[in-house]
């Protein structure tokens, strides 16, 4: 990243190769909208170029890029009202090796995740899928580590409730409840 900051734009390609998949999955799981997610990934890298001078040596790059990713999404919400983000085609794809029951569980879990309030969904995604540590997430969202842990615990319990409800009434797929989206609070430096 220091090379990018100091003008070697081509080095950004290496970062793109490394981070585009994690970022795409961050956005897909958060928004349920693949097209939007791809646009936001591009926006993140455009912002890195525009704001590369704000990167300070020694700052963990992973935290910095997720800060940019969060802000890009917040700004997107400011400009456009959130539409129904869950797309049935975003449900996990069928793998031949998966037993049918496991596949169904996977779909239900995905839908249960989409039903969580976005704030909780984002925390789970950051901690579980992006494998950020609690202290990294705490800095990212601007709260204490213990608060993150409490919220993770609550989010998991809420996820369990949503999962149970879907198991009890899976027939009304996919519109039931729907995800609860709201623009999260913008924190940290402006990038």
């Amino acid at each position: 990243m220091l090379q990018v900051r100091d003008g070697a734009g081509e080095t950004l390609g290496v970062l793109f190769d490394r981070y585009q998949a994690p970022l795409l999955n961050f956005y897909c799981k958060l928004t349920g909208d693949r097209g939007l997610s791809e646009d936001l990934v591009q926006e993140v890298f455009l912002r890195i170029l525009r704001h590369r001078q704000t990167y300070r040596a020694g700052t963990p790059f992973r935290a910095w890029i997720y800060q940019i990713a969060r802000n890009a999404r917040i700004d997107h919400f400011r400009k456009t009202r959130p539409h129904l983000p869950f797309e049935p085609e975003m449900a996990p794809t069928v793998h031949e090796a998966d037993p049918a029951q496991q596949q169904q569980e996977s779909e239900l879990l995905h839908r249960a995740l989409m039903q969580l309030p976005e704030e909780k969904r984002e925390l789970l995604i950051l901690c579980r899928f992006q494998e950020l540590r609690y202290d990294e997430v705490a800095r990212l969202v601007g709260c204490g580590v213990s608060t993150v842990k409490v919220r993770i615990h609550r989010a998991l319990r809420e996820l369990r409730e949503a999962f149970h409800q879907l198991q009890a009434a899976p027939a009304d797929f996919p519109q039931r409840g729907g995800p609860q989206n709201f623009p999260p609070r913008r924190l940290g430096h402006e990038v």
Partner: protein
Amino acid sequence: MKCEQIAELLPDYLQQALRPDQNKLVEQHLAACADCTEVVALWKKLATLPDEQPSTASRERFDAMLHAWQSGRAENLAAGKRPSLGSIFDWLRSPVGAVAWSIALLALGAYIGLQLGGTKASSQDLAAMHTELAGMRQLVALSMLQQESASQRLEGVSWTRREDRLDPQVLSALKHTLRYDPSVDVRLAALDALSRHAAQPQVRSSVFDALQEQQSPLVQVALIDQLVEWRDPQAAQHLEKLRQSPNLNPAVRQRADWAISKLN
């Protein structure tokens, strides 16, 4: 141990960040508590959700964006470094600095007059003063946009951002800057300033015009992005026209294709 006590340890257990003795405590609890076991199972199950794979088009879009950026950067370097701001004293002695000082002194004088006069100014007086200040600000902006130094023209653009609504003369100057300023930075700044006043009809038409005339890929990409943001019904036809340009930078053509697909 009760569930409430385990709840404090469970998040760290999930990230395998507990000491061995704490880990053992949690596992003992899990062996006897179906409720907490289910939460842990759900956490593990989350990892089984399949990942999305980036498309090849994603890398192509990124390459186009990077190429446009590098082209713009090369153009900037060829045009020479942006002149420095110079010393503050030099600026204060310049005609523009003098106008800025005039505004500051006018505002200060009005404030002192109001305080010492002991009488409340009528709303008409205040409105007149406000108008006069706005006029002075516009004068500064217009003067600075005429300067030879790119950094002073950038300053001029930033002065226009202080207005809620652009005066026709300032709008005209900004439009001219967007189309003809030799510096890419100043043209980009002018676009940014104009985009804040998208409600004024002439602003959009000036962006449409600039789109066909610009040669800098960086500015072209910025203009395209602006059109996508506005979602103007006329944007697609202007982008289509741009696509037909014979010597269009491939990266810009790709960006235009992307924009047309977004707008349709």
